[in-house]
């Protein structure tokens, strides 16, 4: 394997891992989003029925409008938009901050209230805080703004970046394995199978880690799958070596022939 191929392989893995980061952070912060509006509201100025669902019925609340950069909602006339959440919180956060909502007292899908003169889909009563690694999302958002200003266009948006990251999360593992395979052997190999497990398991491990740091529940299946790469990684290297050996190649050939025999029997049984 040439030095250039090695360098390209490492570069691809690094790009893949970096591209995962925005989606893993944004999708494992719970109810989260970018602050697009912030207003201090006296409790008495809120509609009576909204006051009913508040625990503290005196003083003022911060009405923080956040836009979820991942979740989409269907609007009228077939339009799709990012979900907007109005958080009634005692804490406040600046515009442009990436925040998550903690100690949630109530989440309601409401569309009929005009509280800060902007529409929203979800009303949440809780506290806003900065999620773990939320600074990375804020930095990306700031950089996107700077790039857009530089090119005087809004081609690049945070949702677009997160969509690209999501694609990398869903299909990146498979693509990276295939690219590495062609760089190394120019043909698919059996080690690809545990290698795919390694990458997806590692993705899951990172996602579980972020969720855990944000005090979110992680189901046991995800937890187990997230740890599978520990076993799958050495297995990948062992299979790679084994299938290159003569013994391994012979064994694979035998298994392939057996498989063909079984397929032939099935075909003849069904008259195919």
């Amino acid at each position, binding site marked *: 394997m040439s030095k250039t191929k090695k360098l390209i392989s490492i570069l691809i893995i690094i790009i893949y891992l970096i591209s995962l980061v925005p989606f893993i952070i944004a999708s494992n912060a719970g109810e989260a989003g970018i602050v697009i509006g912030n207003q201090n509201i006296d409790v008495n100025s809120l509609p009576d029925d909204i006051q009913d669902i508040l625990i503290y019925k005196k003083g003022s609340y911060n009405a923080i409008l956040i836009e979820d950069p991942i979740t989409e909602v269907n609007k009228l006339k077939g339009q799709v938009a990012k979900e907007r959440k109005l958080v009634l919180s005692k804490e406040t956060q600046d515009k442009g901050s990436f925040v998550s909502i903690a100690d949630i007292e109530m989440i309601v899908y409401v569309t009929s209230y005009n509280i800060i003169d902007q529409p929203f889909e979800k009303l949440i009563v809780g506290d806003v805080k900065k999620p773990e690694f939320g600074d990375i999302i804020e930095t990306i958002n700031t950089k996107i703004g700077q790039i857009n200003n530089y090119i005087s266009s809004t081609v690049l948006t945070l949702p677009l970046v997160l969509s690209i990251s999501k694609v990398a999360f869903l299909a990146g593992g498979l693509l990276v394995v295939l690219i590495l395979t062609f760089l190394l052997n120019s043909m698919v*190999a*059996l080690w690809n199978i545990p290698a795919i497990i390694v990458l997806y398991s590692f993705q899951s491990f990172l996602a579980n880690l972020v969720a855990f740091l944000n005090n979110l529940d992680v189901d046991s299946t995800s937890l187990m799958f997230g740890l599978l790469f520990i076993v799958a990684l050495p297995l990948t290297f062992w299979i790679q070596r084994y299938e290159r050996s003569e013994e391994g190649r012979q064994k*694979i*050939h035998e298994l392939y022939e057996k498989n063909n025999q079984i397929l032939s029997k099935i075909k003849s049984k069904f008259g195919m």
Partner: protein
Amino acid sequence: MLYRYIVIIIILLISSIQPTMALFEPGEVEPAKYHQFVITSVSPVEFYPSDVRTINITIQNIYGYPAFGVTTLTDKNKADPIKFTHELKKYVADEIGPNQNFTVQYEVYIQDTVPRGTYYIPLTVFWSTVKDGTVKRQEDLYIGIKIIENPEVIKIGIVNITTIPENIKPGDTFGLKVTLRNIGNSKLNQIRALLDVRMPFSSVGSSTEQYISLLEPGQSEEVLFNLLVDKQTPSRLYNFNFTLEYRDYTNRLQSQHSSFGINVEEVSEAYIQDVILSPTTLNPGSEGIIMVKVANAGTNVIKNVRVTVFGGEKILTQTQNFIGIIRPGTSALETTSFGVRVDPEIEVGNYGLNININYDDVNGEHRSRSNLYIIKISEKNSIIPVSSEILDYMLYTFIFMAMSYGIFLMVGFQIKRKK
């Protein structure tokens, strides 16, 4: 003989004196046939309604002979409507010589109701022509008293009436603040403000009587009454009688009566008594009905009642129902129903329905009231007893297995071809 005549003359004289003495018995009064006395001055002569003042009457003996045992008398019947207080008959002097003056004092009270004008009051003088004389002569003298308008303005003005809070609803406890100002030109003392509180109002935590010790001319003071209005009170204007009692600059008790109105008005009358969801659990794609029970908690009929539900676009089949009239009382509950058809693509979670009641109150004023009702859309139970997450995992596993099998076939084919 001479002696005999003298005795007869004495007997005749005695017999002639006896009838005369019988004619003038002690205490007998005869009107004077001449003017012995005149009134030379009366002070004061001008009185105001409600006045209680002492009048000085100076009388002069204008006859050439002295008058003995002089007394004066006012007749209460002849003096009406002017009232003389204390003793009406006064002893003046044992002897009033010719051209001599004497002064008598009477306390006079002028009633409030006495019409303005001049009144002539008789004053009778009794005297004897001889010292210790038993026969009295009498002469009626007249004094004139003029009743005029009092230049002193004695009045308290009610300059402001406010309630705290401004709008009073049935069942409310409220403060009634009355601002009083002395709009007269003399100071007023011991002011007692009395509010006539009757049902449906009652006094709470304070008396219906309030006191102000002193009000100088132009000065204002506030009196506060704490009241409670019964919760069954119909909405309308209620009249209160308000009495002010106080002492004026002459320490006389004055009273003033007035009245004012307080409006009792209900602000919110209609409310949602119950919301019934059937079936109680909703899933994406499920159908049902939601019943909203509307009651009139007020005391007046409400009209044009409409129930509109906002925020149920993906849940309800209709958004507005018309009820019409709702009479007061819990027996007049009205139920309106909305069809439920949950969008099969809806996301599970809590959905807030903003149930709005619009109506016209008894005064024709349009009112509305809204309530947030939260409907929970739960995940639909699958016919396969596994969760959607498990199904997802199974799908991923199948894809992975298929992909792995494909790789195995490709690898095996390559090895076979090389051999």
